[in-house]
């Protein structure tokens, strides 16, 4: 039967051609909607996965987070090329669109455990701005001293133009740091860690 034949049904006249077209339209629209929905749902899923991964990546970078705790308004950028076996994170800290500091995370052997330090060097005056103890499991009776602020403060303001020397009784030179008797290995390990960062700063970053 030709498609253009008009039929009377319930008082209404239907055009079969347009009926088929309309049917096709609805069919394809439905199909399109299904496809769109699928793509949309997949996109949403991918987006959620991406967000989770991003959150995990950010959460995983504890070091960057800890740096943000000290420099909340700064933009912190990781420099992979300056990282070494011991110094496994190097960050540039930007303030007012300029690099103001370099933060390095270094891992050294202590008396009983690995000691992890964040060493911040102020690039504007080439001094050690602060040394932060991130992780250690030294013994309670000996290792406690390197957790003390009074010990870590001994590094603050030290020049980054030269390596630090270990002193046992008192500071006699500008670059002397007095280690703690009774926690000699642990406190000397901190000096060693800071020296690695000073060296890396001068060789690979500055």
């Amino acid at each position, binding site marked *: 039967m030709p498609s253009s034949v008009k039929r009377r049904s319930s008082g209404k006249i239907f055009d079969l051609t347009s009926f088929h077209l309309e049917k096709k339209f609805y069919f394809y629209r439905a199909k399109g909607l299904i496809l769109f929905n699928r793509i949309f749902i997949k996109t949403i899923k991918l987006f959620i*996965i991406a967000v989770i*991964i991003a959150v*995990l990546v950010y959460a995983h970078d504890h070091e960057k987070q800890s740096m943000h705790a000290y420099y909340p308004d700064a933009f912190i950028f990781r420099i992979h090329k300056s990282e070494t076996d011991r110094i496994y994170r190097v960050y540039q800290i930007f303030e007012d669109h300029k690099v103001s500091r370099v933060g390095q995370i270094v891992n050294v052997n202590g008396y009983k455990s690995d000691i992890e330090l964040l060493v911040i060097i102020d690039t504007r005056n080439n001094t050690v701005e602060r040394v932060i103890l991130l992780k250690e499991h030294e013994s309670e009776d000996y290792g406690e001293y390197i957790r003390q602020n009074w010990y870590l403060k001994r590094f603050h303001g030290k020049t980054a133009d030269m390596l630090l020397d270990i002193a*046992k*009784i*008192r500071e006699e030179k500008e670059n002397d740091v*007095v280690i703690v008797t009774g926690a000699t290995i642990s406190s000397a390990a901190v000096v060693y860690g800071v020296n690695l960062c000073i060296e890396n700063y001068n060789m690979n970053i500055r």
Partner: protein
Amino acid sequence: MLGRKKYMGLTLFVIICLFLFSGCASESADQIDSPGETEAEYVIISGLTEEDIQLTVKEVKNNYEPVSADVISIDSAGDEEQYHVKGALLHDILMNFDASQKDLYAIRLVAGDGYQIEVPSEVLKARDVILAYEINGEPLDDKTKPLRAVIPDERAMYWVRNLINIEILKGSETEEVSKVVFMETAFKTLNQEEYTYYENIDKAVKIEDLMSQFEIAPSIETVSFVASDGLEKNETGEIFKSSYFKITGEDAPLFLSPDMPKGMYIKNILYCTASDTLFMSAEQALAKYPVNDEGGISLPDIFTDINIAKSSNYVLTGADGYVVEVKAEDIETGIIVKDTKGEYRLKFAGLDKSSTVKNILMIESK
């Protein structure tokens, strides 16, 4: 469809796990103590026979009857810690070499990190010395190997870990004290150096300078210490002369050295005796001995405590060189007081003012 969902879920789970656990990996990598090579681990016993005796841990384990004990260690702060130790008795080992622990004058326990301590005869007579190779059911860790000396009911300072040498010490007669030097006054006559002591910068003097000033022979073998808390300890002359007295701040006078393990420091020294000279802290003495109505301490109380040579006369010297000679019977009325300048003076109740010595430096038996 379900398979793909499962696959995606699994992938997501693996990614999350990787991130979560990679951060913990380095922290969980604690060292596990290996059983150790007992053949290569040994302790030297010296002074018992002509030649040093090398005793392996394996020999200690196999050749001597093991003893187990629940013991409590008490540190200098009074903190207690309980252990279950297993080892051999030093007494059994010495018996094997025809010696008895009870008959020894003293032994010196030496650790691998330089820590050393003399165990006096009274402790050797009264206590067991366990050479422990197991603590709390575990073999010793790397820092404690090859053996740990454990002396139950004695202070933790005798519990030497990483024990590498047991020196058998020969007895020597105690020399009488013929000279008492008051530390605080003596320190003023010496070069005082800055000494960083934890968070503080205090003053310290070199003991070498003190020995030179008061003509103590550098070859002196042993120096004995008595601290305010009752601690009595001997130290070798070699260690003594290369060390310092920290004279200000916490725990002063404090015997210390940058090359000495912290456990060997002696806090709040009441006196120390080197040869025939006794260095006394007047500050610690004022805290230790009974104080009379005048706020001073009685000289006879001090003399009773120290082994000063009996004499008919005593010569008293001040920091300014002022010298007075007093009779032995006058010593009975001697009082040491701290004056308003923070200096110590020695005065006598029954004598005139000329017998008073300001800034007392020294008392010598004549």
